[in-house]
Structure formats: structure tokens, C-alpha cells
């Protein structure tokens, strides 16, 4: 343990002083009110058009069903709609409002929507220049000439990165709750949320469906988001070791993440796309019971894929970082 803790401290403070985390918080502070406002508008329209949430839900189910009867809609789409109809119906039958307007519900849906693109982006803001930044600034020579083994340096960077990933997830949830709560109210902690929908083709089995209080649901979401964000962080660290410039490192990772998002919306016919890490980032979908991007994907499958990618990322980062010559 000797020397490791001071190294971690050093790396953590370096990231802090580079104001990377400020950027993350700033982005959140700007974006969350925008989404809150959009949500407020939707809630206002719904209040104007519907007597209560049940009417709204019944109408929504009806609209999905009408879409199902159309011939012009692709089968894949219909499958998703059928699943959504059955889940909404389950909420209706059990007298639970799936979208009650309150701070905790907003936080829950914000986090679920942000998992595949927004969180990776925030993580990249911190992770992308961890090594390449030192290289372009020239400080890497100073770092490496100290009498410390190289793996310890990279390891301390990894730990510092982990700390910031955790902070990002937790701070985003807190900000989300505080900002949206100011508009929608701070309630909704104990509201039941259903989880455990098992999807078989286009039917939803409700044998294992159970209600969890919403605070626990948000916590579970946070945990899953943390795992997918950590995968992105580790891969970003690897890219940042491999690539000389920070810009190249950010672009590479962003391209991978965006490609994953596009793949998961259109690659239902290309099955092997499910081995791409970016297609597996949406872990929260398993919690909500939304159909996975490619049929046959499960939580365990996604976790294994993410673990494999992370392991490869770590092996490559440490392998390269401890061996490579520093010349510039």
C-alpha cells in the first residue's frame, strides 16, 4: 500500500483542479432544467386533455393498439408496442400511475433515458485525457521519472476515475431530484414501481412482477448505470493510453458510444452486434422490462459482455502503459 494512497490523492486532486468535474456539474445544471421544462409542458397538456392519469393511460394503450392494427409498421416496432401495451395494462390493472409527476419519478426516467448516451458522455469528460492529456502537456515525463512503478501510476488514475464516476452518477441523481422537485414537488419516494417483467417474444409474463418502492428502484438504476459507466470509463482510459492526443481519444470513444446507440435501434437483424459493448450499456432497460435491442439479450449476458470488454480494456491499458516508450 505504500505510496499508492498519496498517488491516488494526487490524481484525484489533479482531475479536480483541471475542473473536469465542474464541467460535468455545469452540463447537468444547464440540461436538467431544460428537460424539466419539457416535462412540465407535457404534464400541462395532459392535465388539459385528460381528467386523470387513468384516462391518459387508457388512451395511450388505445393508441398503441391502433398502431398495431396498421400494416405499414415494421414487425419489430409492433413487438415493442405489444410489450409496452401489456406493461401499461399491468400498471392500470394494479392502480399504479407509471408516470406520476414528482421529483423522484422524473429522476427515475431521466436516469433511464441518460444511460446509453448522456452518462458515457459525462464520463468521457473526465476520463478521456487522463493519460493522453499528460502526454500532450508533457507532464508524463515528470510523472514517469519518479521512483514509482508504472502500474501504480495507472492504477491510481483508475481509482481516481472510479471515484469521479461514482460522484457523477450520485450528483446527477441529486441535482435531478433537487431541480425537478422544485417544479413537480419532492414526493414520490415510496411510490411502487413494477419490475420483473419477463419478455417472451412479444408477450410479457407477469409471474415474477413485483413492486419495489421508487427510492429502491432509483438506487438499483444508479447501480446499473454505475456499472455501464465504469465500462465506458475503463475503455476510455485504454484509448487514452493508446492515443496521443486528447481530441482523438474523445472522438474515438464518442464514435464508439454513438455507434452503439444507432446499432441498438436498427440492428435487430444483425445478431452479432450484441457483442459490441455499446449495445449493452442500457442495463436499466432490463430493470424496467423494456425489450432489449437484440432478441435474446439478458441482464447476465450484458454484464458478461461488459465485464469482458472491461477486462480487455484493463489488460491492454496496463500492458501498453508499463511497456511503452515515452518519446516526444
Amino acid at each position, binding site marked *: 500500500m505504500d505510496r499508492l494512497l498519496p498517488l491516488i490523492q494526487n490524481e484525484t486532486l489533479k482531475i479536480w483542479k483541471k475542473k473536469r468535474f465542474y464541467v460535468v456539474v455545469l452540463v447537468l445544471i444547464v440540461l436538467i432544467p431544460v428537460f424539466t421544462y419539457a416535462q412540465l409542458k407535457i404534464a400541462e397538456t395532459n392535465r388539459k386533455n385528460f381528467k386523470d392519469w387513468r*384516462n391518459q393511460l387508457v388512451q395511450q394503450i388505445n393508441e398503441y393498439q391502433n398502431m398495431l392494427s396498421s400494416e405499414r409498421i415494421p414487425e419489430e416496432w409492433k413487438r415493442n408496442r405489444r410489450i409496452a401495451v401489456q406493461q401499461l395494462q399491468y400498471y392500470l390493472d394494479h392502480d*399504479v400511475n407509471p408516470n406520476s409527476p414528482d421529483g423522484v419519478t422524473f429522476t427515475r426516467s431521466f436516469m433511464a433515458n441518460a444511460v446509453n448516451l448522456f452518462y458515457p458522455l459525462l464520463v468521457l469528460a473526465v476520463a478521456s485525457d487522463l493519460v493522453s492529456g499528460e502526454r500532450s502537456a508533457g507532464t508524463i515525463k515528470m510523472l514517469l521519472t519518479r521512483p514509482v512503478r508504472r502500474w501504480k501510476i495507472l492504477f491510481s488514475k483508475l481509482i481516481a476515475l472510479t471515484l469521479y464516476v461514482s460522484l457523477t452518477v450520485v450528483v446527477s441523481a441529486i441535482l435531478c431530484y433537487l431541480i425537478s422537485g422544485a417544479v413537480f414537488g419532492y414526493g414520490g419516494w415510496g411510490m411502487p414501481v413494477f419490475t420483473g417483467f419477463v419478455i417472451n417474444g412479444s408477450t410479457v409474463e407477469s409471474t415474477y412482477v413485483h413492486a419495489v418502492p421508487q427510492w429502491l428502484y432509483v438506487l438499483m438504476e444508479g447501480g446499473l448505470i454505475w456499472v455501464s459507466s465504469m465500462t465506458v470509463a475503463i475503455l476510455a482510459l485504454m484509448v487514452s493510453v493508446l492515443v496521443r492526443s486528447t481530441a482523438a481519444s474523445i472522438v474515438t470513444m464518442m464514435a464508439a458510444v454513438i455507434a452503439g446507440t444507432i446499432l441498438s435501434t436498427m440492428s435487430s437483424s444483425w445478431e452479432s452486434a450484441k457483442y459490441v459493448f455499446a449495445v449493452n450499456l442500457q442495463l436499466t432497460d432490463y430493470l424496467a422490462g423494456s425489450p432489449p435491442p437484440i432478441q435474446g439479450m439478458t441482464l447476465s449476458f450484458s454484464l458478461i459482455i461488459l465485464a469482458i470488454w472491461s477486462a480487455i480494456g484493463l489488460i491492454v491499458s496496463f500492458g501498453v502503459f508499463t511497456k511503452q516508450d515515452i518519446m516526444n
Partner: protein
Amino acid sequence: MSRTSSSALWRSIAFSALASTLLLAGGFGYAVKDMLYPSAEAYTGAPVKSVLPEHKELSRAKEINVTAIGDSLTKGTGDATGDGYVKQLVSLLKEKYPAIPVKLNNNLAVNGIRADQLAQRLSTDKGYRYALRQSNLIVFTIGGNDLFQIANGRAAGEATGDISLETVKKGLNQGIDRLDNVFRLLYEINPNAHIVYTGLYNPFYNITDLRDGSLQVQKWNEEAYSLLHQYPNMMMVPSFDLFERSIGSYLSNDHFHPNHEGYAQIAERIAQSLD
């Protein structure tokens, strides 16, 4: 930055980040456990108590809440503006009862639905029942898909070739039994609302081979009338005459559904018939 403040910063970052990490790791662990080994305990929510609206004439009601159910005619298929007869009816009612707020609660019509499918929904679907119990005016159309026996899921207009007088005759008896069910269930769900059923018309009146289909349509309407006549809160509005001589101006391009004008006529009739 001095050494002390820097180490205080480190300590607060490290502490909050470690706490966050533990929290999230806990959340992750629980999520995995919860999903891989789900404990299914049934959840029973607080059931709603819905109060039926008072039974009185619409002109003396405090507010008019409209719920529409049925098939594509109620959905408004064929109307380029998307209004159908339901939205047009709501605006007509607003003119007719300027002092009473008129609101469309739900339009739960489904394209291509048959009377047996509607009866199924009425008996099992909580949402349908909830929406219907709230309203004091229910408008609906059903039966077109039973009578003309259009293959399920096909757009009505495309199926014209499949239709013969024989199939229409076969559809009649079966359809009437299903219709009886629909009336009975509707009365059971909401005996206080004004319920208006719009009768069928023959969309193929101008096709010589199918003109006799009008006789079946008339039989349907007659049977339907005698069925709903026993329920004091129901009434029927005819539409068959609109689509005979003036079929060209009231029918939409699919040769099956009314166009905006056609729906306007239906809405007008319903508004006229209400007290």
C-alpha cells in the same frame, strides 16, 4: 493552494466518492439479485371507487363527459382532418349547451375491431370500464367489421374484392348476438349515461352486385334497434340514408369510411337527437 486546504479537499472528495461508490455498488448488487432471483409477491393497489354520474338530461347536467368506443368509424378513419364524428360532435354540443362544459374524456375506438372483441374488452378491461363509468354521454359504432367480415387487420377499403352477399348474410346472425352482448355489458357498466349507437350503412351501395347488401344492413339496424330499445338510456341514430344517393360526397377515398363531411352529418344527427 496550501497543503492543508488541499488535503481537506482530498478528504471530502474521497469521503463522498467512497460513500457514493458503496451506495451504487449496493444498488447494483440488489438490482442483480432482484432480477436474477425475483421474489414475486403480488401487489394490490388501492382500487378506485368511481361514482357514476347522475342520471338526468344532458341539458341539466353540470358537465358533459363524452367517452367514445367502437370501431374505425368512431376512430375517425377516412377523415383527413382526423376529427371524425366524435370531435365534431363535441364542438356541436358546445354550441348546443353553451353553459355546460363539454369534454371528450377518451376516444377508445380501435380500427378493425369486431363486436365480440369489443364485448371482450368491456368485460375484462379495467381501463375501458373506468373511462365509461365516468362519462354521461357514450357514443359508439360497432358491427361493420362483423357484417362485412373483413379479414382481421386488413384495411377495410382494400378488402372490397373479398366481399360477397353470402358472407354478409352469414355475418349478420353471428354479429347480432355479439351486439346483444355489447349492449348488455354497456348497460351493466353505466346505466346512467346517455348511450348513442350509430347504425350501419352500406358502403357498397354504388356497386351493382353489392347493392342488395343494403337489405342486410337494414336487417342489422332493425335487429340492433329492437335490442337496444329495451334499455331506457340507449338510442340509435341512423346513417344508412346518407350513403346512398350522396355516397360520392360523403365517402372517403377508401370507399368504406366516411370523409370529413360524412362524419359531420353523423355528428349533426347525434347532436340533434340529444336532449
